[in-house]
C-alpha cells in the first residue's frame, strides 16, 4: 500500500533528519515507500525543497539532498562539471 503524499513527505523528512550522514542521494529515499515509483519519490523530495524544508546539496557533478540545519559549511565536495 503506497503512502499518501503527506505521509511520504513526513517519511522523507524523518530520513533526512535521522540518517547518519547529512547528504543523501535520491536513492536513499526510495526505502521511504517501497511501493512508490522512483520518479514519484523524486517529485516529492523536490517539492520539499520548494517548501524550504530540504535543500539541494549540489557539487557540480552530483546533486544530493540535505536538511539545511545539518550542513555546517558552504564548501563541500565538488566534481566534474
Amino acid at each position: 500500500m503506497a503512502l499518501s503524499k503527506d505521509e511520504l513527505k513526513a517519511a522523507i523528512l524523518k530520513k533526512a533528519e535521522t540518517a547518519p550522514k547529512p547528504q543523501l542521494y535520491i536513492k536513499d529515499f526510495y526505502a521511504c515507500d517501497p511501493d512508490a515509483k522512483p520518479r514519484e519519490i523524486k517529485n516529492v523530495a523536490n517539492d520539499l525543497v520548494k517548501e524550504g524544508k530540504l535543500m539541494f546539496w549540489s557539487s557540480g557533478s552530483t546533486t544530493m539532498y540535505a536538511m539545511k540545519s545539518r550542513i555546517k559549511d558552504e564548501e563541500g565536495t565538488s566534481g566534474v562539471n
Partner: protein
Amino acid sequence: MAKHETPLLDELEKGPWPSFVTDIKRQAEKKPECWDILGQLELSYVEKITHWKHGGIVGVFGYGGGIVGRYSDLPKRFPGVEHFHTVRLAQPASKYYSTKHLRDLCDLWEKYGSGMTNMHGSTGDMVMLGCRTEALEPFFYEMTHNLNQDLGGSGSNLRTPANCIGSSRCEWSCYDTEEACHQLTMHYQDEIHRPAFPYKFKFKFSGCPNDCVAAIARSDVAVIGTWRGNIRIDQAAVKEYVAGNIPSNGGAHAGRDWGKFDIQKEVINLCPTNCMWMEGGELKIDDSECTRCMHCLNVMPRALRPGAEQGATICVGAKAPILDGAQFATLIVPFMKVSADNEFEELIEFIEKIWDWWMEEGKNRERCGETMQRLGLPTFIKVMGLDPLPQHIKEPRSNPYVFWQEEEVPGGFDRDVEEFRARHAA
C-alpha cells in the same frame, strides 16, 4: 592599467590565433576583476598548478543545477576572483542568436558577472564564468523576467540537451533536430533544473550518421538521423562529378591537388559494404546492403541524398572514461519515426522507460551506460520490452556461458540426486 605583471601570459598575445589573454585584458578595462583572473592564471603558469578551490554549494533557490560553485584559494591576493561561480544558461537549439538577445545577455552579465564567458561549454550551454554568490539571485531574476531566458543543467540532472544544425542549414538531416531538442528540453524542465537521477543524463540530437554533435560518444540517449529505402540519386549530377565539373566532397579537398576525381577509387571502393557499382555510365546502389555510413553522400552531395523515408537510430549509454573506460552508445532502436506531429511521443516513452529502470537499478554516480554494462545488454533489452535483434550486436558472444532461466529448461532445475545415484554409481 594592468594590476599584475603577467610576462608568461603576455607570450600568449603573440601569434595568429585569437588570444584569450588579449581579450581578458580588453574586458579588464571595463571589469577590473578580470585583472585578477590574469593574476591568478599567471601564478598558475609560474607554479604549474591550479589555484581554484574545490567546489562549494551555490545555486538559485529551488534549482538543484545550473550553477557550479568556484572559489579562489588566494582570495586576499586576488579578491576579484574570490567567488567566481559558473552560471550555465540554456542555449537555443542550434545556437543561432539574434544580436538583440546576445547584447541583452552581455549587458546583464556586465551588471552581475565578470564579463567572461564560454560560447559554449562542452555540453552546449552558454557558460558565464565568474559570479559572486550574492549576485546569483538578482541575475536570475532579471534574466527570467526581462530576457525570457533560463538556466541549464548540472549535477545529477538531465543536462541541457544539444543538437546539430539539422535541417535549418543542412541537406542531410533526417529529422528536425532543433525542434526535437527544443520540445524535449521544454518537456523536461523539471528534470533539467532539479536532480532526478543517480547521476547526470544527456540527450543529443544529430541529424545524420555524420553525428556533428558527437551524440554517439557523449550522450546517454543519442538520437541520430537515418533513413530507410533507397538513396536518392541524381544521375545527371553523378556525370558532372565524374566529368570533374563539380568539386568532390563539397570542395573540402580543394586545397591540395589530389588528381582528377575518380568515382571508382573515391566512392565505390571506399564503400564499407561494397554495394555500389557503375553500369552504363550510371551509379547503381544495392540499397539493401547499404549501412548508411554517409561516405558517398559526403563525397557527392549534389548527386546523392538520403532516402525519403526518414527517422532516427536510437543509441543508449555513451560516456567519457571515468571510471571503467569510455563507452560509445549502443544501438537499441534501429529505426524510429521522430516527428513533431505526435510531439515526439515515441521517443519520450522510450526515454521514460529507461529512466524508470535506471532510477531503480542504477547505483549512485553510475551513468546509464555503466548500469547497462553491469546488468547486461540482454537485461536492458528485456526491460525495454524490445525483441533482441542481430543489429544490437557486432557479433554473437564467443563464450558459452548463457544464463538459462529455469523455465526455459524441460523439467526445471530441481532434480533428485538419490534417483541419479541409483542409476550412476559414484
